[in-house]
Protein backbone atom coordinates (compact mmCIF):
# COMPACT_ATOMS: atom_id res chain seq x y z
CA UNK A 1 0.00 0.00 0.00
CA UNK A 2 1.14 3.54 -0.74
CA UNK A 3 2.83 5.61 1.92
CA UNK A 4 0.45 7.93 3.84
CA UNK A 5 1.39 11.41 2.55
CA UNK A 6 0.86 13.36 5.81
CA UNK A 7 3.72 11.24 7.27
CA UNK A 8 6.15 12.97 4.92
CA UNK A 9 7.40 16.47 4.28
CA UNK A 10 9.13 17.75 1.18
CA UNK A 11 10.65 21.21 0.86
CA UNK A 12 12.85 22.81 -1.77
CA UNK A 13 16.36 24.08 -1.16
CA UNK A 14 17.40 26.86 -3.51
CA UNK A 15 21.09 26.77 -2.63
CA UNK A 16 23.60 24.39 -1.12
CA UNK A 17 23.79 26.10 2.29
CA UNK A 18 20.02 25.90 2.65
CA UNK A 19 20.08 22.18 1.79
CA UNK A 20 22.86 21.46 4.26
CA UNK A 21 21.04 23.33 7.05
CA UNK A 22 17.91 21.28 6.40
CA UNK A 23 19.92 18.07 6.36
CA UNK A 24 21.49 18.98 9.68
CA UNK A 25 17.92 19.13 11.03
CA UNK A 26 17.31 15.60 9.74
CA UNK A 27 15.92 16.06 6.23
CA UNK A 28 17.01 13.48 3.68
CA UNK A 29 18.15 14.52 0.21
CA UNK A 30 15.71 14.11 -2.69
CA UNK A 31 16.99 14.50 -6.27
CA UNK A 32 15.24 13.10 -9.38
CA UNK A 33 12.95 10.88 -7.30
CA UNK A 34 13.18 7.83 -9.55
CA UNK A 35 14.03 5.61 -6.56
CA UNK A 36 12.31 7.44 -3.69
CA UNK A 37 8.93 7.79 -5.45
CA UNK A 38 8.91 4.05 -6.18
CA UNK A 39 9.52 3.30 -2.47
CA UNK A 40 6.77 5.78 -1.50
CA UNK A 41 4.35 4.10 -3.86
CA UNK A 42 5.24 0.65 -2.54
CA UNK A 43 4.70 1.86 1.04
CA UNK A 44 8.29 1.09 1.99
CA UNK A 45 9.62 4.63 2.41
CA UNK A 46 10.32 5.51 6.06
CA UNK A 47 8.30 8.56 7.15
CA UNK A 48 10.25 11.79 7.53
CA UNK A 49 11.37 15.01 5.94
CA UNK A 50 12.99 15.36 2.55
CA UNK A 51 14.65 18.26 0.85
CA UNK A 52 14.50 18.62 -2.94
CA UNK A 53 17.90 19.46 -4.41
CA UNK A 54 16.86 19.99 -8.03
CA UNK A 55 16.97 23.80 -7.84
CA UNK A 56 20.56 23.95 -6.56
CA UNK A 57 22.59 25.30 -9.47
CA UNK A 58 25.93 24.51 -7.81
CA UNK A 59 25.19 20.81 -8.10
CA UNK A 60 24.31 20.89 -11.79
CA UNK A 61 26.19 20.51 -15.02
CA UNK A 62 29.33 19.02 -16.53
CA UNK A 63 32.48 21.16 -16.37
CA UNK A 64 35.77 20.57 -18.14
CA UNK A 65 38.96 22.19 -16.91
CA UNK A 66 42.09 21.11 -18.78
CA UNK A 67 41.93 17.30 -18.54
CA UNK A 68 39.55 17.09 -15.57
CA UNK A 69 35.86 16.44 -16.13
CA UNK A 70 33.58 17.31 -13.19
CA UNK A 71 30.00 16.07 -13.13
CA UNK A 72 27.72 17.81 -10.63
CA UNK A 73 25.71 15.39 -8.51
CA UNK A 74 22.49 16.46 -10.26
CA UNK A 75 23.80 15.61 -13.73
CA UNK A 76 21.13 13.42 -15.31
CA UNK A 77 21.66 10.23 -17.29
CA UNK A 78 20.43 12.15 -20.38
CA UNK A 79 23.10 14.81 -19.91
CA UNK A 80 25.81 12.15 -19.61
CA UNK A 81 24.38 10.15 -22.54
CA UNK A 82 24.38 13.16 -24.91
CA UNK A 83 27.67 14.81 -23.87
CA UNK A 84 30.05 14.79 -26.86
CA UNK A 85 33.32 14.97 -24.90
CA UNK A 86 32.23 12.32 -22.43
CA UNK A 87 31.28 10.11 -25.38
CA UNK A 88 34.77 10.52 -26.75
CA UNK A 89 36.80 10.13 -23.57
CA UNK A 90 34.60 8.13 -21.18
CA UNK A 91 32.34 6.12 -23.51
CA UNK A 92 31.48 3.53 -20.86
CA UNK A 93 29.67 6.18 -18.79
CA UNK A 94 27.62 7.32 -21.79
CA UNK A 95 26.72 3.78 -22.81
CA UNK A 96 25.66 2.90 -19.28
CA UNK A 97 23.57 6.11 -19.09
CA UNK A 98 21.90 5.19 -22.37
CA UNK A 99 20.85 1.81 -21.02
CA UNK A 100 19.36 2.96 -17.71
CA UNK A 101 15.57 2.58 -17.72
CA UNK A 102 14.34 4.50 -20.73
CA UNK A 103 14.22 8.15 -21.84
CA UNK A 104 11.79 9.36 -19.15
CA UNK A 105 13.96 7.85 -16.38
CA UNK A 106 17.16 9.12 -18.00
CA UNK A 107 15.69 12.65 -17.96
CA UNK A 108 15.12 12.53 -14.18
CA UNK A 109 17.64 10.19 -12.59
CA UNK A 110 20.91 11.75 -11.44
CA UNK A 111 24.44 10.47 -11.03
CA UNK A 112 24.45 11.52 -7.36
CA UNK A 113 21.23 9.64 -6.73
CA UNK A 114 22.47 6.57 -8.56
CA UNK A 115 25.58 6.49 -6.37
CA UNK A 116 23.92 7.39 -3.04
CA UNK A 117 21.06 4.93 -3.45
CA UNK A 118 23.77 2.30 -3.48
CA UNK A 119 22.01 -0.46 -5.40
CA UNK A 120 24.47 -3.24 -6.34
CA UNK A 121 22.75 -3.12 -9.75
CA UNK A 122 23.27 0.63 -10.25
CA UNK A 123 24.56 1.38 -13.74
CA UNK A 124 27.12 4.16 -13.19
CA UNK A 125 29.35 2.55 -10.53
CA UNK A 126 31.22 -0.01 -12.70
CA UNK A 127 32.26 2.77 -15.12
CA UNK A 128 33.26 5.09 -12.28
CA UNK A 129 35.35 2.29 -10.75
CA UNK A 130 37.41 1.62 -13.89
CA UNK A 131 37.96 5.31 -14.64
CA UNK A 132 38.95 5.73 -10.96
CA UNK A 133 36.70 8.71 -10.34
CA UNK A 134 37.04 10.94 -7.32
CA UNK A 135 33.89 11.70 -5.39
CA UNK A 136 33.48 15.04 -3.66
CA UNK A 137 31.30 15.17 -0.54
CA UNK A 138 30.00 18.30 1.10
CA UNK A 139 28.58 19.13 4.53
CA UNK A 140 28.48 22.19 6.78
CA UNK A 141 31.94 21.09 7.92
CA UNK A 142 33.32 21.56 4.41
CA UNK A 143 34.24 19.62 1.30
CA UNK A 144 36.16 16.35 1.26
CA UNK A 145 37.30 14.11 -1.55
CA UNK A 146 37.33 10.31 -1.53
CA UNK A 147 38.53 7.75 -4.08
CA UNK A 148 35.39 6.30 -5.61
CA UNK A 149 36.93 2.82 -5.38
CA UNK A 150 36.67 3.18 -1.56
CA UNK A 151 33.25 4.88 -1.39
CA UNK A 152 30.93 1.84 -1.20
CA UNK A 153 31.71 -0.08 1.98
CA UNK A 154 29.01 -2.77 1.84
CA UNK A 155 25.47 -3.53 0.75
CA UNK A 156 23.76 -0.11 0.63
CA UNK A 157 26.55 1.27 2.82
CA UNK A 158 28.91 4.09 1.92
CA UNK A 159 31.17 6.73 3.41
CA UNK A 160 28.50 9.48 3.47
CA UNK A 161 27.78 10.94 6.91
CA UNK A 162 24.11 11.68 7.68
CA UNK A 163 24.51 15.40 7.08
CA UNK A 164 26.68 14.98 3.99
CA UNK A 165 25.75 15.28 0.31
CA UNK A 166 27.44 14.11 -2.85
CA UNK A 167 28.62 17.34 -4.46
CA UNK A 168 30.21 16.04 -7.65
CA UNK A 169 32.29 13.36 -9.30
CA UNK A 170 35.48 14.10 -11.17
CA UNK A 171 37.40 12.12 -13.75
CA UNK A 172 40.87 12.60 -15.19
CA UNK A 173 40.99 12.26 -18.96
CA UNK A 174 43.85 9.82 -19.09
CA UNK A 175 42.62 7.04 -21.37
CA UNK A 176 43.79 7.87 -24.87
CA UNK A 177 44.53 4.69 -26.86
CA UNK A 178 42.52 2.56 -24.44
CA UNK A 179 39.95 0.01 -25.49
CA UNK A 180 36.65 0.77 -23.65
CA UNK A 181 34.01 -1.90 -23.11
CA UNK A 182 30.53 -1.94 -21.55
CA UNK A 183 27.94 -4.68 -21.55
CA UNK A 184 24.74 -4.94 -19.55
CA UNK A 185 22.83 -8.21 -19.47
CA UNK A 186 19.16 -7.93 -18.51
CA UNK A 187 15.82 -9.47 -19.39
CA UNK A 188 15.17 -6.90 -22.07
CA UNK A 189 17.05 -4.01 -23.59
CA UNK A 190 15.19 -1.09 -22.00
CA UNK A 191 13.78 -0.77 -18.46
CA UNK A 192 15.68 -3.82 -17.24
CA UNK A 193 17.65 -4.05 -14.04
CA UNK A 194 20.76 -6.01 -14.92
CA UNK A 195 21.60 -9.61 -14.04
CA UNK A 196 25.24 -8.73 -14.55
CA UNK A 197 27.16 -5.90 -16.17
CA UNK A 198 30.78 -5.30 -17.01
CA UNK A 199 32.86 -2.18 -17.54
CA UNK A 200 36.41 -2.54 -18.79
CA UNK A 201 39.30 -0.54 -20.21
CA UNK A 202 42.63 -1.84 -21.44
CA UNK A 203 45.77 -0.76 -23.20
CA UNK A 204 48.30 -3.02 -24.89
CA UNK A 205 52.00 -2.48 -25.39
CA UNK A 206 53.59 -4.78 -27.98
CA UNK A 207 50.61 -7.13 -27.71
CA UNK A 208 51.01 -7.42 -23.95
CA UNK A 209 48.62 -5.92 -21.40
CA UNK A 210 50.11 -2.68 -20.13
CA UNK A 211 47.04 -1.56 -18.17
CA UNK A 212 43.69 -3.29 -17.69
CA UNK A 213 40.83 -2.50 -15.35
CA UNK A 214 37.57 -4.37 -15.09
CA UNK A 215 34.54 -3.94 -12.84
CA UNK A 216 31.21 -5.73 -12.52
CA UNK A 217 27.80 -4.74 -11.20
CA UNK A 218 24.93 -6.90 -9.86
CA UNK A 219 27.26 -9.74 -8.83
CA UNK A 220 28.26 -8.71 -5.30
CA UNK A 221 27.02 -6.48 -2.45
CA UNK A 222 28.39 -3.46 -4.33
CA UNK A 223 29.84 -2.91 -7.79
CA UNK A 224 33.34 -4.44 -7.65
CA UNK A 225 36.71 -3.93 -9.27
CA UNK A 226 38.20 -7.31 -10.19
CA UNK A 227 41.69 -6.94 -8.80
CA UNK A 228 42.53 -10.67 -9.00
CA UNK A 229 41.73 -10.75 -12.73
CA UNK A 230 43.56 -7.47 -13.32
CA UNK A 231 46.79 -8.48 -11.61
CA UNK A 232 46.76 -11.87 -13.33
CA UNK A 233 46.45 -10.25 -16.77
CA UNK A 234 49.03 -7.45 -16.39
CA UNK A 235 51.98 -8.03 -18.72
CA UNK A 236 50.38 -11.05 -20.39
CA UNK A 237 49.62 -11.77 -24.00
CA UNK A 238 45.84 -12.34 -24.29
CA UNK A 239 46.05 -15.88 -25.68
CA UNK A 240 43.07 -18.25 -25.50
CA UNK A 241 44.63 -20.12 -22.54
CA UNK A 242 45.26 -16.86 -20.63
CA UNK A 243 41.65 -15.78 -21.24
CA UNK A 244 40.38 -19.16 -20.02
CA UNK A 245 42.43 -18.80 -16.83
CA UNK A 246 41.17 -15.21 -16.33
CA UNK A 247 37.58 -16.50 -16.51
CA UNK A 248 38.33 -19.00 -13.75
CA UNK A 249 39.99 -16.32 -11.59
CA UNK A 250 36.90 -14.08 -11.93
CA UNK A 251 35.22 -16.34 -9.34
CA UNK A 252 37.56 -14.86 -6.70
CA UNK A 253 36.41 -11.30 -7.46
CA UNK A 254 32.64 -11.64 -7.65
CA UNK A 255 30.06 -13.32 -5.40
CA UNK A 256 26.84 -13.53 -7.41
CA UNK A 257 23.72 -14.61 -5.54
CA UNK A 258 20.31 -16.09 -6.37
CA UNK A 259 17.56 -13.46 -6.30
CA UNK A 260 14.36 -12.49 -8.13
CA UNK A 261 16.24 -11.51 -11.26
CA UNK A 262 18.60 -14.43 -11.74
CA UNK A 263 20.63 -17.19 -10.13
CA UNK A 264 24.20 -17.07 -8.89
CA UNK A 265 25.20 -19.86 -11.25
CA UNK A 266 23.82 -18.10 -14.32
CA UNK A 267 25.33 -14.79 -13.27
CA UNK A 268 28.79 -16.31 -12.83
CA UNK A 269 28.66 -18.09 -16.21
CA UNK A 270 27.45 -14.99 -18.07
CA UNK A 271 29.94 -12.76 -16.26
CA UNK A 272 32.73 -15.08 -17.38
CA UNK A 273 31.43 -14.94 -20.94
CA UNK A 274 31.21 -11.14 -21.09
CA UNK A 275 34.71 -10.96 -19.57
CA UNK A 276 35.86 -13.14 -22.47
CA UNK A 277 34.04 -10.84 -24.91
CA UNK A 278 35.86 -7.84 -23.42
CA UNK A 279 39.27 -9.53 -23.51
CA UNK A 280 38.83 -10.83 -27.07
CA UNK A 281 38.01 -7.31 -28.31
CA UNK A 282 41.16 -5.71 -26.91
CA UNK A 283 43.51 -4.74 -29.70
CA UNK A 284 40.71 -4.73 -32.29
CA UNK A 285 40.29 -0.93 -32.30
CA UNK A 286 41.57 0.87 -35.34
Amino acid at each position, binding site marked *: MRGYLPDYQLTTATNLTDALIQMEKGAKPFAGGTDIMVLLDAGSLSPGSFV*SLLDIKELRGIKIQKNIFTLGALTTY*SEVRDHKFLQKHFPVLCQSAQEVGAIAIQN*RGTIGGNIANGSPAADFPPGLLIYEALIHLVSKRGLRTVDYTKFHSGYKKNLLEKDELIHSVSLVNDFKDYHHFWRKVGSRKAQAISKTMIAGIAKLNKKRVEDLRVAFGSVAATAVRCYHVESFLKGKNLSPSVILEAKKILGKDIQPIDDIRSTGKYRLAVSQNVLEEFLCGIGSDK
Partner: protein
Amino acid sequence: MKTLSLIINGKKRTLKFHPLSRLLDVLREELQLTGTKEGCGEGECGACSVMLDGKLVNSCLVPVLQAQGKKILTVEGLAKKSLSSLQKCFMNCGGAQCGICTPGMLMAAHALTQKKKKLSKQEIREGLGGNLCRCTGYGPIIDSIQSLGRKS
Protein backbone atom coordinates in the same frame (compact mmCIF):
# COMPACT_ATOMS: atom_id res chain seq x y z
CA MET B 1 -0.44 21.35 2.11
CA LYS B 2 1.21 23.98 0.01
CA THR B 3 -0.09 26.39 -2.60
CA LEU B 4 1.62 25.66 -5.89
CA SER B 5 1.30 26.97 -9.43
CA LEU B 6 1.77 24.81 -12.49
CA ILE B 7 1.52 25.82 -16.15
CA ILE B 8 -0.52 23.04 -17.64
CA ASN B 9 -1.03 22.99 -21.40
CA GLY B 10 -0.34 26.72 -21.44
CA LYS B 11 -2.69 27.65 -18.59
CA LYS B 12 -1.54 28.59 -15.12
CA ARG B 13 -3.29 26.55 -12.42
CA THR B 14 -2.87 27.34 -8.74
CA LEU B 15 -4.05 24.86 -6.13
CA LYS B 16 -3.16 23.47 -2.72
CA PHE B 17 -1.29 20.18 -2.78
CA HIS B 18 0.76 18.00 -0.51
CA PRO B 19 4.24 18.62 -1.95
CA LEU B 20 4.88 14.88 -2.35
CA SER B 21 1.65 14.26 -4.27
CA ARG B 22 2.41 12.57 -7.54
CA LEU B 23 2.06 14.86 -10.53
CA LEU B 24 -0.03 12.03 -12.01
CA ASP B 25 -2.65 12.29 -9.22
CA VAL B 26 -2.72 16.07 -9.41
CA LEU B 27 -3.43 15.89 -13.15
CA ARG B 28 -6.05 13.18 -12.94
CA GLU B 29 -7.82 13.87 -9.66
CA GLU B 30 -7.42 17.59 -8.97
CA LEU B 31 -7.49 18.87 -12.55
CA GLN B 32 -9.61 16.11 -14.15
CA LEU B 33 -7.06 15.67 -16.93
CA THR B 34 -7.68 11.96 -17.15
CA GLY B 35 -5.96 11.46 -20.51
CA THR B 36 -2.78 10.66 -18.59
CA LYS B 37 -3.10 7.07 -17.37
CA GLU B 38 -1.71 5.14 -14.45
CA GLY B 39 -0.26 1.76 -15.35
CA CYS B 40 2.41 0.43 -13.03
CA GLY B 41 2.96 3.45 -10.78
CA GLU B 42 6.69 2.77 -10.64
CA GLY B 43 8.17 4.22 -13.82
CA GLU B 44 8.21 0.98 -15.80
CA CYS B 45 5.30 1.28 -18.23
CA GLY B 46 5.20 4.88 -19.49
CA ALA B 47 1.37 5.18 -19.46
CA CYS B 48 1.68 8.33 -17.33
CA SER B 49 4.26 10.05 -19.59
CA VAL B 50 4.01 13.85 -19.82
CA MET B 51 6.43 16.57 -20.86
CA LEU B 52 7.90 18.63 -18.01
CA ASP B 53 9.73 21.73 -19.22
CA GLY B 54 10.16 20.08 -22.62
CA LYS B 55 11.40 16.74 -21.33
CA LEU B 56 9.60 13.44 -21.21
CA VAL B 57 8.99 12.24 -17.63
CA ASN B 58 6.92 9.62 -15.84
CA SER B 59 4.36 11.70 -13.94
CA CYS B 60 4.01 8.92 -11.34
CA LEU B 61 7.60 9.59 -10.24
CA VAL B 62 7.44 13.39 -10.06
CA PRO B 63 6.40 14.96 -6.75
CA VAL B 64 4.28 17.99 -7.57
CA LEU B 65 6.64 20.28 -5.65
CA GLN B 66 9.29 19.64 -8.30
CA ALA B 67 6.85 20.78 -11.00
CA GLN B 68 6.22 24.13 -9.27
CA GLY B 69 6.29 26.95 -11.85
CA LYS B 70 7.14 24.54 -14.65
CA LYS B 71 5.47 23.93 -18.01
CA ILE B 72 3.62 20.66 -18.28
CA LEU B 73 2.27 19.26 -21.52
CA THR B 74 -0.23 16.41 -21.27
CA VAL B 75 -1.93 14.47 -24.02
CA GLU B 76 -4.85 16.92 -23.79
CA GLY B 77 -2.48 19.68 -24.88
CA LEU B 78 -1.26 17.96 -28.05
CA ALA B 79 -4.31 18.88 -30.12
CA LYS B 80 -4.85 22.55 -30.85
CA LYS B 81 -7.91 23.34 -33.00
CA SER B 82 -7.71 19.89 -34.53
CA LEU B 83 -5.68 16.80 -33.74
CA SER B 84 -1.90 17.11 -34.13
CA SER B 85 -0.20 15.54 -37.16
CA LEU B 86 1.18 12.87 -34.85
CA GLN B 87 -2.28 12.01 -33.50
CA LYS B 88 -3.63 11.81 -37.06
CA CYS B 89 -0.81 9.42 -37.97
CA PHE B 90 -1.78 7.19 -35.01
CA MET B 91 -5.40 7.18 -36.27
CA ASN B 92 -4.49 6.47 -39.88
CA CYS B 93 -2.04 3.68 -39.10
CA GLY B 94 -4.03 1.94 -36.36
CA GLY B 95 -1.56 3.04 -33.69
CA ALA B 96 -4.16 2.62 -30.91
CA GLN B 97 -5.67 -0.68 -29.90
CA CYS B 98 -7.27 -0.80 -26.43
CA GLY B 99 -6.00 2.75 -25.89
CA ILE B 100 -4.57 2.60 -22.37
CA CYS B 101 -0.96 3.04 -23.48
CA THR B 102 -1.83 5.51 -26.25
CA PRO B 103 -1.54 8.81 -24.32
CA GLY B 104 1.89 7.75 -23.04
CA MET B 105 2.92 6.50 -26.49
CA LEU B 106 1.83 9.82 -28.00
CA MET B 107 3.85 11.79 -25.44
CA ALA B 108 6.95 9.63 -25.95
CA ALA B 109 6.52 9.94 -29.71
CA HIS B 110 6.01 13.69 -29.35
CA ALA B 111 9.28 13.95 -27.37
CA LEU B 112 11.06 11.77 -29.90
CA THR B 113 9.90 13.74 -32.94
CA GLN B 114 10.81 17.15 -31.50
CA LYS B 115 14.41 16.94 -32.71
CA LYS B 116 13.83 15.16 -36.00
CA LYS B 117 10.87 13.67 -37.79
CA LYS B 118 12.47 11.09 -40.06
CA LEU B 119 13.38 8.23 -37.79
CA SER B 120 14.53 4.66 -38.31
CA LYS B 121 12.60 1.81 -36.70
CA GLN B 122 15.54 1.33 -34.34
CA GLU B 123 15.48 4.99 -33.21
CA ILE B 124 11.74 4.74 -32.62
CA ARG B 125 12.13 1.51 -30.65
CA GLU B 126 14.72 3.17 -28.43
CA GLY B 127 12.58 6.27 -27.98
CA LEU B 128 9.59 4.14 -26.94
CA GLY B 129 11.68 1.77 -24.79
CA GLY B 130 9.92 2.96 -21.64
CA ASN B 131 6.37 2.53 -22.97
CA LEU B 132 4.65 -0.81 -22.76
CA CYS B 133 1.65 -1.84 -24.89
CA ARG B 134 -0.03 -4.91 -23.42
CA CYS B 135 -1.97 -5.46 -26.63
CA THR B 136 1.56 -5.77 -28.10
CA GLY B 137 0.52 -3.44 -30.91
CA TYR B 138 4.04 -2.13 -31.32
CA GLY B 139 4.20 -2.63 -35.10
CA PRO B 140 1.41 -0.15 -35.99
CA ILE B 141 2.65 2.29 -33.31
CA ILE B 142 6.09 2.33 -34.92
CA ASP B 143 4.49 2.64 -38.38
CA SER B 144 2.46 5.63 -37.13
CA ILE B 145 5.57 7.48 -36.03
CA GLN B 146 7.44 6.62 -39.22
CA SER B 147 4.54 7.88 -41.31
CA LEU B 148 4.88 11.30 -39.65
CA GLY B 149 8.43 11.44 -41.07
CA ARG B 150 7.17 10.60 -44.55
CA LYS B 151 4.60 13.41 -44.44
CA SER B 152 7.04 16.16 -43.49
